[in-house]
């Protein structure tokens, strides 16, 4: 925590980062084999998702290449399997491996965008609440309190549901992804806002901020230039942990049928589609995307846990 509370300016940041990387952060990373494995898994999943167009054996969006004759083929190593579809095919004859690669891309895209959006929203509101105080603080924090007393998934469902009702049906498929991002972002901003508000109120009264005020630096400049770098540490930790939750939320919404459509499937959608075939024994359609989803969330969670511990040695 010393890294975060230590006063200063942005000029000190590179040095601080360097010191951090050289000492405890890297050390605790190398010392924890679980974290190293998690980082490796996360890297593999993310890299293969980014490279999907290059490494996927088929293009799942190319409807012309699909053949219902190839539908629900089992994985290659089972009887009736076929090595052109290593992990089998789904009900429409799409290659499961390819849909997973493209699906992971979408899941990551939604998750990352949602976290960035909620981070921007939360940090901004937190800074305003902490810096200005007064009624603005009260209003923001009351809203946060009410929202926090409901599970985020419910809020996301509600926002998603309302958006669906208000938007014209034919436009829905194209903008669903943005609706999803917005819904998830709006349900997670509270964590960021609370943390930033707390540390802002602490930092606000420190000498370096008071000094900047006395010499007449504009408030906006103080907040962005001096305050922000000193409250951003915990935000990054929460961001990592929330990334796992955001990916999970997207998957859940898609699984419930109110997320991404089957024509543009994320991991959650794939599991939903496969779920219908589970009872007839075609387990691979839902289980393989499920494994990838679980691995992705688990590895991001582990990285987040490690980051939190590294930032907060007291908990170690």
């Amino acid at each position: 925590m010393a890294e975060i509370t230590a006063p200063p300016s942005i000029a000190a940041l590179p040095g601080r980062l360097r010191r951090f990387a050289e000492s405890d952060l890297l050390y605790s990373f190398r010392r924890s084999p679980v974290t190293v494995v998690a980082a490796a898994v996360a890297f593999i999943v993310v890299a293969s998702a980014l490279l999907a167009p290059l490494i996927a054996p088929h293009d799942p969006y190319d409807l012309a290449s699909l053949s219902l004759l190839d539908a629900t083929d089992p994985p290659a190593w089972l009887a009736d399997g076929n090595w052109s579809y290593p992990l089998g095919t789904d009900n429409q004859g799409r290659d499961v491996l390819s849909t997973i690669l493209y699906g992971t891309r979408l899941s990551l895209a939604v998750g990352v965008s949602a976290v960035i959006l909620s981070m921007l929203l939360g940090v901004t509101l937190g800074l305003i609440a902490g810096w200005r105080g007064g009624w603005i603080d009260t209003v923001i924090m009351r809203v946060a309190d009410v929202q926090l007393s409901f599970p985020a998934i419910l809020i996301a469902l509600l926002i998603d549901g309302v958006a669906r009702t208000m938007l014209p049906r034919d436009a829905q498929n194209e903008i669903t992804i943005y609706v999803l991002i917005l819904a998830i972002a709006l349900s997670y901003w509270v964590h960021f806002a609370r943390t930033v508000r707390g540390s802002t109120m602490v930092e606000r009264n420190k000498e370096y901020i008071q000094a900047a005020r006395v010499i007449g630096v504009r408030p906006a400049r103080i907040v962005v230039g001096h305050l922000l770098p000193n409250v951003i540490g915990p935000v990054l930790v929460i961001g990592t942990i929330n990334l796992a939750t955001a990916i999970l939320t997207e998957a859940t919404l898609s699984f419930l049928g109110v997320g991404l459509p089957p024509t543009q499937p994320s991991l959650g959608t794939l599991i939903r589609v496969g779920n219908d075939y589970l009872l007839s024994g075609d387990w691979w359609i839902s289980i393989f995307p499920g494994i990838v989803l679980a691995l992705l969330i688990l590895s991001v969670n582990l990285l987040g846990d490690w980051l939190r511990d590294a930032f907060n040695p007291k908990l170690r």
Partner: protein
Amino acid sequence: MLAFVIQRLLQSVLVMLTVALIAFALFNYVGDPINSMVGQDTTLADRERLRQELGLNDNFVVQFARFVGHATEGNFGLSYQQARPVGTIILEKMPATLELSFMAAFLALLFGVPMGIYTGLNRSSWTSQALLAISLVGVSLPTFLIGILLILIFAVVLGWLPSFGRGSVVHIGWWTTGFLTVDGWRAIILPSITLALFQMTLIMRLVRAEMIEVLRTDYIKFARARGLTSRAVNFGHALKNTLVPVMTITGVQLGSIIAFAVITETVFQWPGMGLMFIQAVTFADIPVMAAYLVLVGFFFVVINLVVDLLYYVVDPRLRVEREVAGG
């Protein structure tokens, strides 16, 4: 004491009003209440007359007051999708969700709390490490995936338990229960485990973290220095102090079981309010969504209120007036 209760009650009412306001906004501005009542062939003039009769042209405050009034009577209008009173539909679905949630909460507490205590007290033991690792996997596995895996193993491959529905139920007044039939018990096993697992790991990690925190305090060190037995220190002192904050968060967590039931009910086609809500979202059935929101909000507020009052009973620092004597 009375002042505290009144203050908490007022806060609860305020939260409920906020939730009602959102539901009302949904109901009135997102959905069209007229559409829910009339057919396609109703003329514009008839619609306008209906608007007038229903008071939809009244000002905001009057309409909101009327909405709240109706809501307290359980009157949320007609479902767009089923053309039946929303109140009736919810009343039909509620027992299924409440029985499932109760079962899940019971399982989560039954296993989560002892596991948390154990791992908190024996931090470095092999069992604790294993439990923690499993719990992290439990937190990371999406609820619906756990449900699917359970169905695959116990319903598809082994064929031991049903994969969907509630089994046969017995009617007791307006309430329906699955607890009185073998069928019902068999049906609730997989969904309740699915729903409980996430909360269980959460409660376990929470109790563990709190236990570790408490074991670090001076009064625990002092209790050891007084030569109390390990049993007295761990269970008489540490556990009691752990349970105070754990109770609050656990209460809120248990409340969220009702919300998370949405996912479990979808996986297992459990005929409860969650499944109803998802169908309402898919069909843009605004009155049902609004009613569900108000109801879940109500459950949450009640649970929070009960937890706060319990807190008050357990912690003497809140109960007894501060009367500091000098020197």
